[in-house]
């Protein structure tokens, strides 16, 4: 392990020198009561500039991102982040504005936000969008709050339950819980889709809505979506679209046309802005016209040629974030959508689906594919064969992939598949890259048969070898 900055501390090595102070200094005690003053100097590490730069450069070499190679994390859409987006977000007119500036001095920013909203409406089939939510789960929470506001406004106070399929992302039950709904789980049928009978049985006048990811986390399109929408709406509920997998249908089909009332999209997935630690994220929420009054405020208003921030929205759920969302991220997504255009958006989707199916078909001889049929942008494999042959689990395969230079796919999710290994290549990857990945997966399958120990003890090439995850979870050491 590299040393921490604090361990590299060399007193006096700071690479700066301040000129003598030409102000009259008064003791701190004169302005701050002594009980609030610390007695010892803070332990801020002292390093020369070059040593600080080397420290962070060394750490950066240990990171793995989409710029390093394939990042096949399922339900995550780890696509390439075009560098021109970074240029756009750094334009001084975007980067150097202040959120408290009067609207008339930031017309360009407001225009960009307004146009992003329009484009998202067109892609999702919605009527209005808020750009405030800071990430996907935040968008879900906002959506659940809108559902609640809608029912409350209609004096429908009985609706305390939210339906969520057992294949859903964990954020669905988490966010609805935060908003105060009771989660009712919907079972998947043998085809990996929502069990309509179970839905019919659970849909009653206490259900506020259904949160659905389509295609779901198995990469399968919920083909009964028309019927699902009918059942939910017939029972007085609202239909929420989790946009995590929007990449699989964008430009081809629209949640709004499928009967969804609310949708969140992840700009950091579908619209190519950086993800995770490289984010921040952005999770705009769109609604059909009849829900627009409940959206967070302010929304962008255009009168004539003038843009302004509209706070006169009495039914709004209020703010869900300070200011106007992660604006720089919105600029990047805007640049991406404009660069692709409507044809490019559809093309990206089709390539993503083609890539996933290519991988699925190439890997089916070596790995068990539980729902082995035409998928959308991702598919789920398992380690069943390897488990039967030599007790090799999905975790072992994921660790071994690191030795081949890949970030592992999503593992042990969705929960309804045993030993799940969920792969989403995205449209970014070329045939050659995919073939390399297939070869690595085939090699691992072969190793599992012939030299299982090398898989069971992987990774071998990383700085940190196999981590004791149980120990880390049971007895976490969270401070230095």
């Amino acid at each position, binding site marked *: 392990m590299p040393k921490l900055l604090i361990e590299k501390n060399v007193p006096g090595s700071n690479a700066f020198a301040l000129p003598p102070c030409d102000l009259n200094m008064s003791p701190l005690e004169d302005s701050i009561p002594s009980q609030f003053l610390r007695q010892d100097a803070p332990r801020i590490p002292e390093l020369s500039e070059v040593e600080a730069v080397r420290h962070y450069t060394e750490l950066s070499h240990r990171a793995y991102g989409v710029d390093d190679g394939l990042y096949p994390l399922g339900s995550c859409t780890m696509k390439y982040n075009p560098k021109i987006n970074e240029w756009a977000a750094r334009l001084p007119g975007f980067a150097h504005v202040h959120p408290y500036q009067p609207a008339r001095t930031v017309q360009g920013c407001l225009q960009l936000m307004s146009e992003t909203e329009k484009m998202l409406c067109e892609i999702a089939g919605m009527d209005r969008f808020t750009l405030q939510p800071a990430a996907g789960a935040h968008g879900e929470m906002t959506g659940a709050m809108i559902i609640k506001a809608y029912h409350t406004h209609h004096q429908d106070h009985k609706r305390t339950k939210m339906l969520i399929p057992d294949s859903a992302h964990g954020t669905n039950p988490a966010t609805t819980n935060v908003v105060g709904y009771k989660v009712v789980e919907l079972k998947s049928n043998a085809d990996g889709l929502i069990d309509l009978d179970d839905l019919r049985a659970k849909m009653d006048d206490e259900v506020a809505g259904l949160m659905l990811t389509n295609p779901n986390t198995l990469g399968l399109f919920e083909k009964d979506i028309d019927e699902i929408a009918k059942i939910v709406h017939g029972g007085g509920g609202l239909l929420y679209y989790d946009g995590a997998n929007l990449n699989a249908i964008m430009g081809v089909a629209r949640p709004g046309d499928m009967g969804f009332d609310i949708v969140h999209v992840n700009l950091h997935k579908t619209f190519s802005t950086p993800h995770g630690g490289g984010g921040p994220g952005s999770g705009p929420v769109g609604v059909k016209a009849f829900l627009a009054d409940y959206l967070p405020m302010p929304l962008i208003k255009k009168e004539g040629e003038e843009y302004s921030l509209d706070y006169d929205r009495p039914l709004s759920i209020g703010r869900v974030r300070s200011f106007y969302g992660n604006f720089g991220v919105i600029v990047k997504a805007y640049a991406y959508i404009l660069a692709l255009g409507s044809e490019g958006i559809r093309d990206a989707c089709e390539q993503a689906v083609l890539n996933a199916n290519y991988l699925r078909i190439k890997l089916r001889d070596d790995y068990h594919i*539980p729902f082995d049929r035409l998928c959308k942008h991702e598919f789920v494999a398992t380690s069943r064969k390897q488990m039967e042959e030599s007790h090799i689990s999905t975790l072992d395969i994921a660790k071994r992939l690191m030795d081949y230079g890949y970030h592992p796919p999503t593992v042990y999710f969705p929960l309804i598949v045993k030993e799940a290994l969920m792969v989403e290549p995205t449209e970014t990857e070329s045939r050659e890259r995919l073939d390399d990945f297939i070869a690595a997966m085939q090699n691992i399958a072969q190793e599992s048969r012939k030299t299982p120990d090398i898989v069971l003890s992987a990774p071998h090439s990383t700085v940190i070898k196999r981590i004791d995850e149980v120990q880390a979870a049971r007895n976490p050491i969270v401070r230095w």
Partner: protein
Amino acid sequence: MKIQEGLYYSVEHEWLRVEDDKAYVGITDFAQQHLGDIVFVELPELDEAVEAGGQIGVIESVKAVSSMFSPVSGTIIEVNEELENAPELLNEDPYGQHIAVIKMNNTADLDGLLNETQYSELCEKEEQGGE
């Protein structure tokens, strides 16, 4: 995989030991094996009223977070606090460690539960079935 005699079982892989109107509830060996190493258990609150099928806790393993459901309705009269600091006990001795004790208010709930033969069949089916 062990299945103990004399217990009731639920399709959610919980076991129930009944003493008069008290029901000791825990998770089965099948459940702990499939969850993998358990790292955290969220226990129900004392005196909480529970419905049959209602959630009474959360079990977190390195693989997944799962809800635990009450097979019967009644009131929580005891929780196994030892699990808060030693969740691994559920892996080591699933039938020896209950999660909570429920004072049942409707013993008819027990009619819907499985006996060890039925439960053993369910486990076999789940082991082979599913895609």
